[in-house]
């Protein structure tokens, strides 16, 4: 934190002193301009966030006014017909269930990998293995979508048939087929996509565990797993929660991979196996091409809802991280 000591700039410094003071004029004028530019550049972020909200609201209003159904409870999407009838009930439900299932699949694996990289392998090996996980994060979402639709769909259909045959009495697995683009397929693809994000974040969290705590646990005779359970996981809990929420924010907004792997069906159903599933983001991508002006406006309205949801999720996650940082800072 050595740069904290540099808060006084030469321009702010008292100019009375030996040697007749610092030269005023052109150079310090540049300083002021530079400072102003930097401040404006920094504030751009705030301007953009506010502008996103304003412009989305402005362009969403025409469709919301023309809508002849309740925007929040109507499950179907006939935004291009007249009168326009559309609502986000089904796609909002689809967004939540797909993301939730994806997080359910991804988080245990991600935490396992993060533990593997921080507490089970040698540091040098961990760097190499971590690189592979980072590669997974670099794959564009459209490639995940294409792979999911063309290749993962087969094994997932087999899995669906097996689940239905053996666990069909659970409503989640009640779908009798045909098995193709389903919530299960979309969630698995989504889980693979958020996996590297959650892994990277939780790895950072686990690396912060004080070594004293770990060594104390081991010295008391704990096995490695007991050490992790008693020292690493409790210490990292807020960080894990924040990481999960950041991953969830990513999952909620994922578009193209889900546009390619979900069934794009408008209904509220817990059936994970049958053709179905849709999300706010995927719906925008799928519907945009043929949308008329009111249809476009309706899609913007649904995007506004998505923006609000992800904003809340991300802000909560960041607040958790900030509170924790203050806590760690004061403890150090």
């Amino acid at each position, binding site marked *: 934190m050595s*740069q904290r000591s540099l808060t006084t700039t030469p321009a702010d410094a008292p100019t009375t002193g030996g040697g007749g003071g610092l030269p005023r004029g052109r150079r310090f004028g540049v300083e002021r301009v530079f400072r102003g530019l930097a401040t404006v550049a920094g504030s751009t972020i705030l301007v953009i966030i506010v502008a996103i909200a304003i412009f989305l609201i402005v362009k969403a209003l025409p469709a919301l006014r023309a809508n002849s159904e309740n925007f929040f409870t109507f499950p179907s999407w006939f935004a291009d017909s007249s009168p326009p009838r559309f609502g986000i009930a089904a796609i909002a439900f689809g967004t939540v269930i797909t993301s939730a299932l994806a997080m359910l699949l991804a988080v245990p694996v991600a935490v396992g990998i993060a533990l593997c990289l921080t507490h089970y392998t040698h540091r040098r090996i961990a760097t190499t293995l971590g690189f592979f996980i980072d590669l997974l994060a670099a*794959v564009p979402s*459209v490639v995940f*979508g294409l792979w999911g639709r063309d290749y993962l769909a087969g094994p997932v259909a087999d899995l669906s048939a097996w689940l239905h045959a053996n666990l069909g009495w659970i409503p989640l697995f009640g779908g009798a087929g045909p098995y193709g683009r389903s919530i299960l397929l979309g969630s698995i693809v989504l889980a693979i996509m958020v996996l590297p994000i959650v892994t990277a974040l939780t790895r950072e969290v686990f690396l912060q565990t004080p070594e004293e705590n770990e060594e104390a646990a081991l010295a008391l005779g704990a096995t490695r797993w007991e050490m992790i359970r008693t020292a690493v996981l409790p210490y990292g809990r807020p960080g894990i929660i924040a990481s999960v929420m950041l991953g969830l924010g990513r999952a*909620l*907004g994922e578009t193209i991979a889900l546009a390619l792997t979900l069934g794009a069906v408008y209904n509220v159903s817990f059936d994970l196996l049958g053709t179905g599933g849709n999300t706010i983001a995927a719906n925008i991508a799928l519907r945009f091409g043929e949308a008329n002006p009111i249809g476009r406006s309706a899609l913007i309205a649904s995007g506004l809802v998505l923006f609000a949801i992800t904003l809340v999720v991300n802000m909560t996650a960041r607040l958790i991280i900030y509170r924790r940082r203050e806590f760690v800072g004061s403890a150090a």
Partner: protein
Amino acid sequence: MSRTLAPGGAGLRTRRLPAWTPVGVGAAAVLLAYLVTAVPGAGGPVRTGVVASLLFVLGLGVLSRVVEGGRVARNRIATTLVYAAFGLALAPLLSITVTLLSKGTERLNGYFLSVSMHNVGAFDDAGGAYHAIMGTLEQAGIATLITVPLGVLGAVYLVEYGRGPLATLIRFFVDVMTGVPSIVAGLFVLAFWVLIISPMLNNGRPEYSGFAAALALAVLMLPTVVRSTEEMLRLVPGPLREGAYALGIPKWRTIMRIVLPTAAPGIVTGIMLSVARACGETAPVLLVAFGTDSINLDPFSGGQMSLSLYVYQQAGVASKYAPGRAWAGALTLVVLVLTLTVAAKLLARRSKLAR
């Protein structure tokens, strides 16, 4: 750790399984799983693998529990699961790599890279992605030109000037903005540029353009560039700045000539990573550049293609040649993105500032 058995189990040490136990149990599990699932109608390598894994965890757990006790058994199971999690994550990476290489190379050649889809019907065994590649390069290039000055200056503000509530607020929203979905950025530019500004420039008709896509990509890149630059600037040692001030160099010159050059490799790494991410974005380009089949090198007028959008569009075409084109485009895209990513990581390794 010694593996000698305490006589009668009465000593301080508990009895331990020999080191080769996991290997032995693993071999037994695979063999057993193979025998069980090799029955006609129950086979399949995936099922054999799943059954073998379950048998391994079960066998090792029971064996360890009997010989070593519950605590050690739980530890062994946890170790197995942690490594299994890792293997589970590598499986899709491997599968995607294999698929990309096998399907993508079918059509990927000089012809594919040098022609567009102009006048190519969906059912023609022809066409390429030249227009898409040029679109991606132009859009990402313009987005970088917009983002880099803004992002780096913004980070300079946060590190060198920003104090008080405004800086705290900006720092918070930079973090929050990294989570804005790409489709929302696309909708924002659609509402702001395509539907409101572009009609003013184009006789009242809204117009899709590559520049609009670049704006959307810039919105997505800005927070990541600010964040990574901020981190690199914080690593520049304070005494370096103090030395410059002591020589009477104004603060802005210190920043421009000393702080930024020192942090430059790290800043470039961050920028390249964000460019790589931007190249892979599909949704915003779909909304504001819309795509086209012909070569459009003018980013300011008319629809423009991008590689990722090309892949998405070809994926939606029902033709026996479309998947080949989609996969070839996907391979081109991944090669582009990975080149940027790996180059950025190598550059980061050369940076003198220790993390």
